[in-house]
């Protein structure tokens, strides 16, 4: 299977998947009851009336994790091509990869020591 065809197939699958995801909701539209009233349409949260709007700032901690994720997921992208060709490239490339991973580990150790991976 040529790769263009494969990606095209995936595109078609995506269209079908979208239909697949919409269909139940659309179908339920014709069957489900509609008895809306204020009490039902208020935010449930935990049963009580919400006290504050939740559309506001959130903990900075999440961004730290997102940053760490960004770094490492890009590293993964660099490691993958090497991994595929590992058998062809030979020991020199392995050594180089160890250097690369070493840098990675130093980064991890730095984040670890600085408490960047600590959930507070």
């Amino acid at each position, binding site marked *: 299977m040529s*790769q263009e065809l494969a*990606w095209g197939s*995936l595109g078609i*699958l995506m269209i079908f998947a979208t239909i697949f995801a919409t269909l139940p909701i659309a179908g339920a539209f014709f069957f489900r009851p509609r008895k809306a009233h204020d009490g039902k349409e208020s935010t*449930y949260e935990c049963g009580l009336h919400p006290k504050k709007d939740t559309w506001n700032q959130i903990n900075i901690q*999440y961004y730290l994790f997102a940053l760490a994720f960004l770094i490492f997921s890009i590293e*993964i992208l660099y490691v993958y091509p090497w*991994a595929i060709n590992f058998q062809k490239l030979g020991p020199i490339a392995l050594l180089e990869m160890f250097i690369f*991973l070493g840098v990675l*580990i130093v980064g991890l150790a730095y984040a670890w020591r600085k408490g960047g991976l600590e959930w507070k």
Partner: protein
Amino acid sequence: MEMIEQLFVMLKQAALALPQALLPAELYARYEGMLSLVIGISAILVFAPATMLFLTWMERKVVARMQKRYGPNRVGKFGALQPFADGIKMFMKEDIIPKAVDPLLHSLAPMVILIPAVMIFAVMPFGKDMILVDLNIAILFIMSISSIETIAILMAGWSSRNAYSLISSLRAAAQVISYEIPLGFSMVAVLMMAGSMSTLDIVLAQQGGWFVLTPWGFLGFLIFFLSGAAEVNRTPFDVPEAESELVAGFHTEYSGMKFGLFYMAEFLGAFAIAAFSITFFFGGWLDPFEPLLGFAILPSWLWFMLKTYVLVFVFFWFRGTLPRLRVDLLLNFAWKYLLPMALLNIPIAALWFYLPAGPIRWVAGWAIGGSLIFGMHQLLTYHRVKKLYGRYERPSRPVVTESVPLKS
């Protein structure tokens, strides 16, 4: 045997016979690929909800038995029709959209979470000649498409305008992105040995022996499976859906079919993780006895399903056994345990590759690799446990040696 083996392929051929008879030959030749693709897609779209229905039933049964209950047993024999009853119920339920929510994002989120959950099946080799698209970068595709789930969860949590949903969705995002790192690194060893990112090639590379039997495969499998469980929010990593703290997590404000779609995506995700663990580490649809006996005992797709359901059972087994992790422990587990372990896996795989093939590789590989894994495990856990619980160490209780008078 051959017939059963090729059952689904033949079914597809049979389905193609009708347009072949109706359409002019030239036109048919032009659209044959397209038609067979549509048939394959339809098969997946039938397979996905069927799997989901079965899994809901199976989960309730398995967990019930682990807790000495019966589980669903009222609708149909062994409660087998329970998932259908639930499905109909969800279908007929009122779809409440609270006034405070962002209606567009709110309605879009369940679809956005379901689409990747279905699309991931495209690169899954269900059996011999049973893969929808043989993508040459299938692993990248899996990783990228499974992370769309995070966006859907964030959409659901943010649009719900509800404190618990928001916290839950943020936690889910933090969790999913944290576990994506070990998930990605755990596959590096597989790629090194298989030399390809195509799921089909990876399966075929295991004809000499399943990857899970090697030290790097074993460790890789554990990391892949555990971080996969976290990716799809299965217990014990279901912090985003922690009922005891977050009501129902990011889908608190959902009802009816929209809730059903979340549910479906979750189960499909669990199935996909189990299936890809099989594909990468347990030889996919390969018959383990074929090299010994010379003939296949069961058709390949049955082997695939059997193996996958064993792993799905393990998911349910976890659910029946393990309590939920606290959120900080959860993230620590990803960053400070799974990630170093996954990095360790790369040198182990390299070592395995450079050891001379034969029994010596198995002995030396397992000896060195196993001790490395064990040592690393002890180092990491010892560090964590000491740090976490060291300060909570209870003072040893004074031993009462003499009776205390009741009245002075």
